[in-house]
């Protein structure tokens, strides 16, 4: 059954806003999603009715705040099928989650001469932390190559790289440039067989599809609340309990200890030992209703809706002269998320985005924080990108197509 987009749109106050005098068409969901009023109201309610620090106060509103914070984690744990909230560490975002894994697990486990395997389609967030770690440790960073279509990972390259026995395979679940959905379950299976741990960058998958960390058998999984209807300032590092148990904390201070004397201390239990100091309580509380919202609509239905929109958009774009679409085509919808990077021959991506802006349409232009992929593999200096979410409609895709026509007209392109 399809989802009721009209009804969903009413929950997002910003979708009735205007940009440059035109109704806002928001097609930059891969950068960040919009927020439903349920999320905005939860944050407002915390600040106006029970603002208090957590884990400390022996009074009603402090207990309520602590409960709401913990509830939000319980929702995340259930949503991604983690075993318990012990496995859910809150960070600021995906980037911080990956860095936390690199600076704690990586710090303890990566030694000189070890290998770390990532792919050519990684976001800088899942590339730079591993570059830093390998430089520091004298480890070697290897890459799973793209196949000849420049759209998918080359599984043969993966096999060859695994023979070199990397300690870690860190891979994006869905590419924020190509939209490609990687078969992380299969990759994890292969990696584990070769003795590697597996980190999945779920920034672009968690918002759009059912994620089951147990089924994937990910050792680490990172995500950002702000891309999945939640507030900015909250990210998640999921890791298997056993791994977290053996990881040293990165930051020391309040909340992360259980006892302290003048010269030593013992760590608090999981996940708190990784959350030193006062947390981003308000946004964590706001993340709860975001998860509820996604669960109520259903990740399966969201995915189905986005698949339909992607198909519609790919079909609309494929007939356009001098428009180039990157990533897998419409015959591969099952392997493709709702991210469409494109270019218009002879026009710079920033000029495309500028014309879209004048039509009230928000799209992204640039290297999308994946410079090696965009400049070296795809050979472009910048790409334009539209990305959809549960509240987008075919009508908005039509407007994007009209905006492309406008760009072509301005730049006198066929």
């Amino acid at each position, binding site marked *: 059954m399809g989802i009721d987009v009209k009804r969903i749109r009413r929950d997002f106050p910003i979708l009735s806003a205007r940009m440059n005098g035109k109704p806002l068409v928001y097609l930059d969901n891969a950068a960040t999603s919009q927020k439903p009023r349920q999320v905005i109201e939860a944050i407002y309610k915390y600040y106006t009715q029970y603002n208090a620090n957590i884990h400390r106060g022996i009074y009603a509103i402090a207990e309520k705040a602590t409960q709401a914070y913990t509830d939000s984690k319980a929702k995340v744990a259930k949503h991604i099928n983690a075993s318990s909230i012990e496995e859910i560490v809150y960070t600021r975002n995906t980037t911080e989650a990956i860095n936390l894994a690199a600076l704690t697990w990586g710090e303890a486990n990566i030694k000189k001469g070890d290998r770390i395997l990532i792919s050519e389609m990684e976001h800088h967030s899942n590339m730079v932390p591993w570059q830093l770690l390998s430089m520091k440790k004298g480890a070697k960073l290897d890459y799973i190559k793209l196949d000849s279509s420049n759209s998918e990972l080359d599984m043969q390259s993966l096999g060859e790289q695994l023979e070199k026995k990397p300690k870690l395979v860190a891979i994006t679940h869905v590419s924020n440039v190509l939209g490609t959905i990687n078969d992380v379950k299969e990759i994890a299976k292969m990696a584990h067989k070769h003795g590697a741990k597996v980190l999945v960058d779920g920034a672009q998958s968690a918002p759009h599809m059912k994620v089951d960390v147990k089924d994937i058998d990910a050792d680490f999984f990172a995500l950002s609340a702000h891309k999945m209807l939640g507030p900015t300032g909250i990210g998640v590092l999921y890791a298997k309990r056993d791994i977290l148990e053996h990881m040293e904390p990165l930051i020391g201070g309040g909340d992360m200890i259980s006892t302290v004397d003048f010269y030593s201390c013992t760590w608090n239990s999981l996940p708190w030992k990784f959350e030193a100091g006062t947390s981003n309580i308000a946004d964590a509380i706001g993340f709860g209703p975001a998860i509820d919202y996604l669960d109520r609509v259903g990740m399966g239905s969201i995915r189905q809706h986005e698949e339909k929109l992607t198909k519609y958009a790919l079909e609309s774009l494929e007939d356009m002269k001098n428009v180039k679409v990157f990533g897998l085509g419409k015959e591969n919808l099952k392997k493709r998320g709702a991210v469409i990077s494109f270019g218009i021959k002879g026009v710079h991506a920033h000029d495309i985005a500028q014309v879209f802006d004048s039509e009230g349409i928000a799209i992204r232009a640039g290297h999308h924080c994946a410079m090696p992929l965009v400049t070296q593999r795809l050979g472009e*200096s910048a790409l334009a990108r539209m990305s959809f979410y549960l509240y987008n409609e075919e009508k908005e895709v039509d407007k994007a197509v009209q905006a492309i026509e406008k760009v072509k007209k301005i730049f006198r392109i066929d």
Partner: protein
Amino acid sequence: MDMYAEEIISHYEHPHNKGKIENASASMHEHNMVCGDDITVYVKIKGNKVDDIKFDGSGCAISTASASMLTDFAKGKSISELEKMGVSDMIGLIGVDPGPARLHCATISLKALKEALFMYAHKEPDAKTRSL
């Protein structure tokens, strides 16, 4: 506001002074990380004046058209005159205000030119130039 005025588009399609100058007096390369605009400005100086100027590279319509118009403007101008130029001069020259997000596209060629002139004079670029 029409950012893509006819003049901008035609300079973008047919940029003036495009290319390299062999044995230039000075040249400077500028690259914008965010959007990938990439430009090198070459100047030939004769008696404190710009005798010839060219630019090379790739970029968006705003950066290409700005470089095209700036290089037209700079020909025959004195170094001291050009060293004084700032953001508002550039906006005046191209005739559109690209707004904060695109301002760097309009000024990247000026930045490269001014840096080349500082280099020619064996001086460090001033703060106004560095912040372009």
